[in-house]
C-alpha cells in the first residue's frame, strides 16, 4: 500500500525523475508537474498529501503556487516543501513566510529529500490523528450536550404545570437548576379525600445523578401520599424507599406537608430541609408578618431506623406558604455573608399580592442581595397562596 502521495513540481525533468525514483522506491505514490499551473491542474485530479516544489519556474513560480495552496481552505493542510537554489537564511525565511512548511536548499541530496519527506509524513499523520480525535471529541461533546438538554427538558416535565391550582389554593414556582439539570424537585398533588399533599426536596450533589434521584423522590412521594394518611407516614415510607435504592452518600432533604381545605391547620414534617415560611395574610400583599414552620428531622435516605416528627401550624385563608431550597439563601457574597433565612424573611415582609409578581420579586431581590455572586446551587422557590 502506498504510504501517501507526493506531488513533485520542478521545471527540470532530471530533478523530477530523480525525486520520483527515490520516493517511489520508498513506497510513496508520486505525481509530477513542470510548473505551478500544471501542479494546480494535477491537484484538480487528485489531492496530494505533500508538495515538493521548486521556486523558479515558468508559467507559475513556486512561491505563487505556495500562496495559492495555502490560501485555499480545501488545500491549506497540504504539507508544502520548497526547493530553493538560493541558499542562506534570508531566502529560507522568505519561503517560510509564504506559508511553506519547510525548505530544502539546492543542490540537494536525494536521500536528504527522502528523509525530510519521511519526517513530514510523520507530522502529517500526527496532524490527521489529532484532527480525528478532535472530531470525535466534538461529536461526543455534542451528543452529551444534546442528552443533557433532553434530560433537562424531561426534568422540567416532572414539575407541576403552571399556573398551579389545587383545592382551596393556587401556587407557582421558580426552578433554576445550577447545571441545566439538578437535584431539586417539588410536587403538589390533590388527594382523594380533598386535601393536598405538598413536597419539596433537595437531593445531595449535583447534575445527572442528583436529577435521577430527584425523580425517584418524586415517585416515592406520590406513592406514599396516595396511600393516604399523614406526612409522618409519608416521610417514613420515603425514607425506607430511598435507603433501599440510593448509595450511602446520597440522600435528600425534604419538607412534606398536607393541607386540608376544611381545616385551619397545616400538618408537616421537616426532613433536614430549610423550614418554609408562612406569611400571614400574604396572599393579600403589602406589609406582612412571617413565621418559620420549624421542625426537626433527619434527611431522607440516611438510615431506615431514623425517626421523624410531625408538626402542626396554623394556616388560614389568605395565608401564603413559601417553600424553597437552600441554594436560594446560601450564596456566599464577597464579604463572606449569606442571605440565610433571616434575609429571606426580610424580603418576604413586603411582597406583591399577585403570586407571579411575588415569585419574581423574591428571585430578583435574592439575586440582587447575592451580587456579584451568582446562584451556584440548584434553586427552587414555590409559593402557595390559600384562597381568602
Amino acid at each position: 500500500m502506498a504510504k501517501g502521495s507526493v506531488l513533485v513540481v520542478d521545471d527540470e525533468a532530471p530533478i523530477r525523475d530523480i525525486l520520483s525514483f527515490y520516493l517511489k522506491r520508498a513506497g510513496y505514490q508520486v505525481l509530477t508537474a513542470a510548473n505551478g499551473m500544471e501542479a494546480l491542474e494535477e491537484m484538480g485530479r487528485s489531492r496530494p498529501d505533500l508538495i515538493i516544489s521548486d521556486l523558479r519556474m515558468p508559467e507559475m513560480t513556486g512561491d505563487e503556487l505556495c500562496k495559492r495552496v495555502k490560501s485555499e481552505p480545501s488545500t491549506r493542510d497540504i504539507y508544502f516543501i520548497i526547493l530553493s537554489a538560493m541558499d542562506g537564511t534570508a531566502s529560507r525565511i522568505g519561503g517560510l513566510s509564504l506559508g511553506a512548511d519547510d525548505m530544502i536548499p539546492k543542490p540537494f541530496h536525494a536521500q536528504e529529500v527522502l528523509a525530510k519527506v519521511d519526517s513530514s509524513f510523520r507530522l502529517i499523520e500526527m496532524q490527521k490523528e489529532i484532527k480525528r480525535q478532535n472530531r470525535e471529541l466534538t461529536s461526543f461533546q455534542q451528543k452529551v450536550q444534546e442528552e443533557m438538554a433532553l434530560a433537562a427538558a424531561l426534568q422540567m416535565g416532572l414539575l407541576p404545570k403552571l399556573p398551579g391550582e389545587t383545592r382551596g389554593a393556587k401556587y407557582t414556582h421558580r426552578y433554576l437548576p445550577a447545571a441545566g439539570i439538578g437535584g431539586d424537585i417539588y410536587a403538589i398533588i390533590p388527594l382523594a379525600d380533598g386535601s393536598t399533599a405538598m413536597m419539596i426536596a433537595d437531593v445531595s450533589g449535583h447534575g445527572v445523578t442528583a436529577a435521577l434521584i430527584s425523580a425517584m423522590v418524586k415517585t416515592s412521594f406520590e406513592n406514599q401520599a396516595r396511600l393516604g394518611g399523614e406526612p409522618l407516614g409519608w416521610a417514613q415510607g420515603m425514607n425506607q424507599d430511598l435507603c433501599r435504592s440510593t448509595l450511602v452518600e446520597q440522600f435528600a432533604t425534604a419538607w412534606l406537608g398536607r393541607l386540608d381545605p376544611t381545616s385551619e391547620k397545616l400538618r408537616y414534617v421537616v426532613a433536614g430541609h430549610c423550614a418554609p415560611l408562612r406569611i400571614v395574610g400574604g396572599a393579600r400583599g403589602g406589609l406582612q408578618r412571617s413565621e418559620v414552620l420549624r421542625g426537626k428531622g433527619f434527611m431522607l435516605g440516611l438510615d431506615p431506623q431514623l425517626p421523624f416528627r410531625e408538626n402542626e401550624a396554623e394556616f388560614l385563608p389568605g395565608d401564603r406558604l413559601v417553600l424553597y431550597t437552600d441554594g436560594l439563601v446560601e450564596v456566599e457574597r464577597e464579604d463572606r455573608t449569606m442571605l440565610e433565612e433571616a434575609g429571606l424573611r426580610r424580603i418576604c415582609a413586603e411582597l406583591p399580592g399577585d403570586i407571579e409578581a411575588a415569585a419574581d420579586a423574591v428571585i430578583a431581590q435574592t439575586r440582587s442581595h447575592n451580587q456579584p455572586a451568582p446562584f451556584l446551587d440548584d434553586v427552587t422557590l414555590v409559593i402557595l397562596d390559600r384562597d381568602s
Partner: protein
Amino acid sequence: MLNIQTRQEGAASVVSIQGKVNFEVTAQLRDVIRETVATVQPKLLVINLEGVSFIDSSGLGLLVAARNSVDKSGGKLHLSCLPAPVKKTFDQTNLTNYFSIFATEQDALRGA
C-alpha cells in the same frame, strides 16, 4: 481548596480538615478517609472540623458514609470542634443527633 491532615493518636486516627467542604472537594476527602479506614482500621476515627467554614450536602453525605464505613469495620466515628456555621447546618438537618459530636479534639479522643 481543602487542607487535610491525618495523624495517629494511639489506637485513634485523627483527620483535621480546613476549608470549604463542598461538591468540588469531596472526592479528595473521600480518598483520605477511605485510605485511613482501610489501612489503619482505627478503633476510633476523629474528624476535626475546626477549620471548616462551610459544608454542603455532599460534604454531609461524605461524613455519613464515613460513619457507616467505620461502623462496619467495628470502630467509632467522633466529630469535634464544629464551627458555628457548620453546627447550624448539622442542627438544621438533625445530624447533631446522628453523630457523636465533641467540643474539643481531646474530648473526642477520650470519649471512646
